[in-house]
């Protein structure tokens, strides 16, 4: 069934057992909404110098947006900022591929569990769900750095 390409076992797992959910202390907090469906996320980031030490979040949303936040937490926490940015870039590329990018080994190495979202990229209405937390993370990070990148999210 085509649907299984979106709702990978791994995504449903993350949805049912989210990682790092809840709001903890952070250096910056952002609130993002998906205007098409009303999904919301409040997300905080904490950095120790160059290292992302925590991403905590709270919000409501569908399985895709919830699982995506969980995967983000698992994948990015503990990484250096530059590495985290690279991962975010690759994830964005995958999600905007309209199902046309078949993740290769190199991509899988970077994205780990997040490659499970490849199937979601075929569903334009759901791509925003998958990206909600990632855009929020990008925005919060920009806030911490106080840099001008903020508005491009």
């Amino acid at each position, binding site marked *: 069934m*085509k*649907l299984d390409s979106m*709702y990978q076992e791994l995504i449903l797992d993350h949805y049912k057992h989210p990682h790092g959910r809840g709001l903890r202390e952070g250096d910056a907090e952002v609130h993002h909404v998906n205007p098409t469906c*009303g*999904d919301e996320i409040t997300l905080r980031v904490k950095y120790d110098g160059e290292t992302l030490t925590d991403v905590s979040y709270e919000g*409501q949303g*569908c399985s895709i947006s919830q699982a995506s936040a969980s995967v983000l937490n698992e994948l990015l926490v503990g990484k250096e900022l530059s590495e985290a940015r690279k991962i975010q870039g690759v994830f964005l590329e995958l999600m905007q591929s309209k199902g046309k990018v078949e993740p290769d080994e190199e991509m899988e190495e970077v994205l780990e569990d997040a490659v499970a979202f490849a199937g979601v990229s075929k569903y334009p209405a759901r791509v925003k769900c998958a990206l909600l937390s990632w855009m929020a993370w990008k925005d919060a990070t920009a806030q911490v750095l106080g840099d001008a990148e903020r508005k491009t999210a």
Partner: protein
Amino acid sequence: MTQLPGLLDIEAIRKDFPLLDRVVHDGKKIVYLDNAATSQKPRQVLDALNEYYEQHNANVHRGVHVLAEEATALYEGARDKVAAFINAPSRNEVIFTKNASESLNLVANMLGWADEPYRVDRDTEIAITEMEHHSNIVPWQLLSQRTGAKLKWFGLTDDGRLDLSNIEEVITEQTKIVSFTLVSNIMGTVNPVDAIVRRAQEVGALVLIDASQAAPHMPLDVQALGADFVAFTGHKMCGPTGIGVLWGRQELLEDLPPFLGGGEMIETVSMHSSTYAPAPHKFEAGTPPIAQAVGLGAAVDYLTAIGMDKIAAHEHAITEYAVKRLLEVPDLRIIGPTTAEDRGAAISFVLGDIHPHDVGQVLDEQGIAVRVGHHCARPVCLRYGIPATTRASFYLYSSPAEVDALIDGLEHVRNFFG
């Protein structure tokens, strides 16, 4: 097949709608339950569009050649049809816009720029309700921000009805305009027009009724409603996209200032000043949606031939059946009235803690098209403490079998996320 009293001859009607034969996801015939978002179009409407473009296309009102005369006659003929459809006292009270949203904004802007006694300003109030479509909220928020007028609203009861208990505080002597929906697009609630109109008239406020979810589904009589303005949209009532209607009382349309300026809406123009054409043209700047008005005229003919009362009866039967069957689904909660009384054919619900996005996605895979989200009525979701709903909405071509398909589909959803 389930037989219900009051149904239309669904098989015959469905033959008029080419899209209903559409097959999706490897062989599944579409079950289109997203009619509150937009309706499908009968062959008769598409034929009218094609005939217009192939035989009569020209710009209207300004030509002496035969095409221009034909196009004008067709465009103005559509106005006659719409006027008859809503029982308008005069055809000149029917303004064509691009959609209901423009119609609603048009009224807000007229009142913002009006002279006394209509003028909305910092000493006045605007009243709406918590169940409005965003298109009947944001224009008033903008007007309120820009003029300083105070925006008030009716809240909702737990069972999805307007709470009119504080009507004298919501509509006061300061109120200039009361704007509310006849039928909620998210909950299906049919609102008590009389009580609101009576109070508005008591204080001398104008009344605007958003009939976007009413015009497609029930007989609409603007005189019986007693409102000053009525807005609706073509694409939800078998018409094309790109066309809406604002009906307004003639004296008001004469007194109120124009909104968009341009060709067609003028009487005479010099560089120093201009005077305006009488309504409706005063409010129709630029080349109007000509083909779309003609298409809406054909839609109105189509609906009238079937009979709006019969369509209402059909939908009532389907809604009654759907409500009953939905309430049998475990963990399903209807947001809005849980009977078919005083409600339209849009039914919102939540299914346990499965997010509507996920409900909609799994239904889609089975060929069932429903809408999920806040349905441009986010305050309703906030009111009931939910992020979103799943909405199934029916129309004249909807069948009991499609209700059954929905129920089966929901079973599948529960298993999928179970």
